């Protein structure tokens, strides 16, 4: 019986096997890169909003405290989004005729609520709580990024589970003094390693990595 395969098919099959392995590796790498890319996580992506609200202007320009608008950040799971009246406490006096504030005035006049697009959003099976993070010395900046440098709001970090666990496994890397929680551009002194260790002990910051900590 003659040979079924030509000797060259040995090379071909080797090439195919190697190619398949490479293909799997390449696809996996691409997929991994894709799901961690800003393109997928929407990090740094600005969204269409009813009013082009600038955190940069209000935070670094005017120096308004975070809690002036996000009132419940210390007591509740939600930080709170300012209601129309909060905005109008200033904008009934200044920029009263600004065209891009028209939706705000409209909201007050008609009682229809403003509909903002979420920027920092977590899936429904994640139960995040702001108050405990503030209490344990995690700064706004650690999750939301340099909000004071965002003319239009965008995500500062990916907010993926691996990113959360970075800190939950070792909070010393990010923890800061409570009085610095709301500051932007905080620089630890002497170094985060030294400060972090002290603060973790002082604040009894023992974040859990149990599933039920966030998923219920």
């Amino acid at each position, binding site marked *: 019986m003659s040979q079924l395969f030509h000797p060259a098919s040995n090379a071909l099959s080797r090439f195919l096997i190697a190619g398949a392995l490479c293909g799997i590796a390449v696809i996996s790498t691409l997929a991994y890169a894709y799901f961690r890319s800003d393109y997928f996580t929407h990090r740094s992506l600005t969204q269409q909003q009813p009013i082009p609200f600038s955190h940069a202007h209000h935070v670094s320009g005017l120096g308004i405290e975070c809690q002036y608008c996000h009132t419940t950040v210390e007591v*509740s799971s939600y930080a709170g989004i*300012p*209601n129309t009246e909060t905005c109008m406490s200033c904008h009934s006096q200044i920029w009263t005729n600004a065209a891009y504030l028209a939706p705000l005035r409209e909201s007050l006049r008609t009682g229809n609520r403003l509909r903002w697009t979420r920027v920092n959003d977590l899936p429904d099976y994640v139960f995040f709580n702001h108050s405990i993070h503030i209490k344990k010395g995690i700064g706004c900046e650690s999750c939301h990024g340099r909000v004071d440098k965002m003319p239009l709001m965008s995500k500062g970090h990916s907010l993926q589970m691996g990113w959360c666990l970075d800190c939950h496994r070792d909070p010393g890397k990010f923890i800061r003094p409570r009085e610095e929680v709301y500051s932007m551009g905080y620089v630890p002194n002497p170094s985060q390693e030294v400060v972090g260790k002290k603060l973790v002990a002082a604040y009894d910051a023992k974040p859990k990595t149990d599933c039920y900590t966030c998923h219920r």
Partner: protein
Amino acid sequence: MGNPVFVQIENSTGRQAPRYWRTLAEYRNKESLAEQSSAEFTHAIDDPSPMQVGRRTVLSYLAASAGLAGLSACTSLPEREIVPFVQQPEYLVPGKPRYYATAMQMGDRVVGLLAETHLGRPTKLEGNPSHPASLGATGIFAQAEILTLWDPDRAATVRRGRNTSTWAAFAIEAGHLRERMQRDQGRGFRLLTGAVRSPSMLATIGELLRQFPEARWHTFEAARREEPAAAGSPSSGNPPVPVYRIAAADAIVSLDADFLHGMPGSLAHAREFASRRRPSAEQPSMNRLYVAEPTPSVTGSCADHRLAARCDSIPAIAGVLREELGLPSQGPAASRGLGAEAREWVRKAAADLQRNRGRSLVIPGEFQPALVHQLANQMNAFLGNEGSTVVWADADTGGLSSEPGTLQSLVEDMEAGAVNTLLILDTNPAYSAPEAKRVAQAMEKVALRLHAGLYETETSRLCHWNLPMAHFLESWGDLRAFDGTCSIVQPTIRPLKGQKPALEILATVLGAPLMTDAEIVRNHWRREAASNRESEAAEFDLFWRRSLRDGVIRRGILFNSEVSAVGSRAPVENGPAVGRAVAPPIPSDSKIELVFRPDPTLYDGRYASNGWLQELPKPITSLTWGNAALISAGTAGRLGLESGDAVEIGLGGRSIEIPVWIVPGHAENSVVLHLGNGREKAGGGRVGVDVNPLRTWGAEWNVRGATIRKLGHQVPLAARQHHQNMENRDLIRSWTLDEALSKEKAASAALKPELLSLYPERPVRDGPQWGMSIDLSACIGCGACTIACQAENNISVVGAEEVRRGRIMHWIRLDTYFEGDPSAPGIYHQPVPCMQCENAPCEVVCPVGATAHSEEGLNQMVYNRCVGTRYCSNNCPYKVRRFNFFQYADYETGSLKGQRNPDVSVRSRGVMEKCTYCVQRIEAAKIRSKVNDQPIADGQIVTACQQVCPTEAIVFGNIADPGSKVSRAKSGSRNYTLLDELNTRPRTSYLACVRNPGNDLAELRESEGGTV
């Protein structure tokens, strides 16, 4: 009565019958059922599927679903909105629940509640600890009311004839009506309501009757026997209502009274009852309960001496008991006709009552005739229980001079043409009244018929106008509880679809269409407060706000010792009328008796469209989604019937077709039928069988002489009892009081073999370790835990067919066990949540790590990781895991979204779920304690099942703290865990059930002789 009827079904295979069993088939050791239930999910495989699927189809579906599953990874992040307020309400913190004190009424029962709201959405109801009818607990109905509020089937628009109309149009119609009534003083106007427990409503009705003196008011409550209320007292006009103090009673005799579950004040009764059922070395005494009833009720299942007695023999038993106590009798000795078993029961009960004079109690059943109530009152008076275990509360008539009329008199008047206008407020006589057809026909003769109610019902369809009524969580009101305590009903949300409260509808008829319910209630109490000098007018605001906060506006008799002293009456002498009544006819056992009772979960049918209550297994029978005729095994054997066999029950020319269900401990030749099923006009259509056609006036509650004919086919019933079969393992533990107190028993219980484990030893963690203890001695088997868990944890309803397949989703199930002879079994209840094993068998088999252990000892289930292999469920020895075979959670219906607890994920198809020990409450408490720098106090975290439990049978807490309540409960000798030998080390443990049957009669007599 008392025949040894069980000979023919005992042990057909000759094997030893198990001591405890759950189904009769198990008792008989039938192979068929054993095989059927050995599969993890019964019927899952052999059930003829509607879709005949071939091998190739399966393969192509497999390939397609694998491909599609891959595609699901390609979705991008969804774009969602944040919608802040325009003007944020004060004190409202998004993410934190707010609680409002309110109250609910069902029939004559009133319960004080706390409504939990999230951003203005009421999501859960809890009991109000300062309300005497709640004491922090609620029953199944209060839990289910939250679903009724959000029910998409509720009436939403004003309807006139077949057309939609408006409230303005109704106000005009009401104006015309009022003009006419002013001319003829309201002649021919009739108001029909359910039981009215609201002082403001009574005052409004009083105002109506004053303005229109010829108008008449009738009440109709489908699940209430009218007679006893009127017969409670010899005084006329204003009959007082008995209030029982169960905790003070050492011996309790219930004459067909389901006082732990089915009566006004039953939550308080249950709490007090259970407080005397936890014997320990420090408090070695227990009360003793005697129950005589036709079918095992919740109360009967807790009895130490239970007598299965036909409903129509209860008067005779009461008569004999009275005689046995030594009360003089004029009639012939009544004991002649009673069976030996009944005589024995009566002798024991009488001896116990005698021994505990002043500390005993006889409770007559709600559905027993006035005679039984008279006899019970005489016995209580004779035994000196008045003022100690029975006190009398005044019935509130709201200052009305006359009692409301009955439905029967209304029907007669309608038939006579004396009624031209009929206004019906939230009652449904065209379905639930005896001779409902006659009611419907009589209504046709009324020129103008108006109906206001939560739903379109059989009655509303006969009316010219249907006015959608607001739910109690949407309206202001006030309610008077069983002991006279008053509460304000405050709304938690605006009516979802513009419905109006009953008070506003009545105000419209009275000519004040703009009057709001809030004004009506507030004005009423302003007047009341002024007249009772409870507060000066200037202080009224404070008084009002305090009442709203506390949920109690005026304390009732249980808080007021003066009133109770006044309320006790002198012992009743044996009058001639009573003497004649003492010898009630002894019924002959051979004739079949029909007994009508409200459904344990649907009540009189008002909850027929509530999926939670439809799917809640009924106590003892475990039936869901429908009813059956309950019969005893002996009667079934005589008639050649098995559970599920369809029969035709005939009575006086009328008949119904209904499946039968054999109930252990049921009285012979008695058939118990539950009202409230088979409603045409409710929810997803007809469920169960309407038994009402068999009822007539005068024979509403029990009647003799029915015929039963076997029809030859089976009706598939959705019972839960055979799910999660115990395979004869030793899961329940029950002791007598003597055993519980004996040292040997404790020692043998503590004796445990050394157990080995393949799993590595878990390191001891610091921090709290959660655990639970369930006291089987306190559990009465009401099922409130199951439905509270459902409300708290967003648990789906699956429907009858899926229940039959064993796919019910309840995270905490209630298993009922029977012991011994099926004709007179011991009955035990066991709630089974997740055991949260320390060596959890489920965790090691999950291929994707979707179930894992937490540092605090919780066995975590992570929905978003679960891929649905179901290995965990397979490996769980306790069968507490539930799988979403289909998309059970309703993602579509808008209003149901409002009900959901925002702190718990809504699970989707293909995901396993199970009890989490209410981890959302644990985490919330932990965060609260850390943010406020306060340690978590023992008892601060309560699980939903624990919070609702009327008897406080469930205790939850930190077992690492030796001083915590749960640690102390677990350290007692009654403590045991399920399937100890598997060494799973469950965190949920049980306390053995203790029953107190007492010594033999002879010893009892001896001790009695010794003390006299």
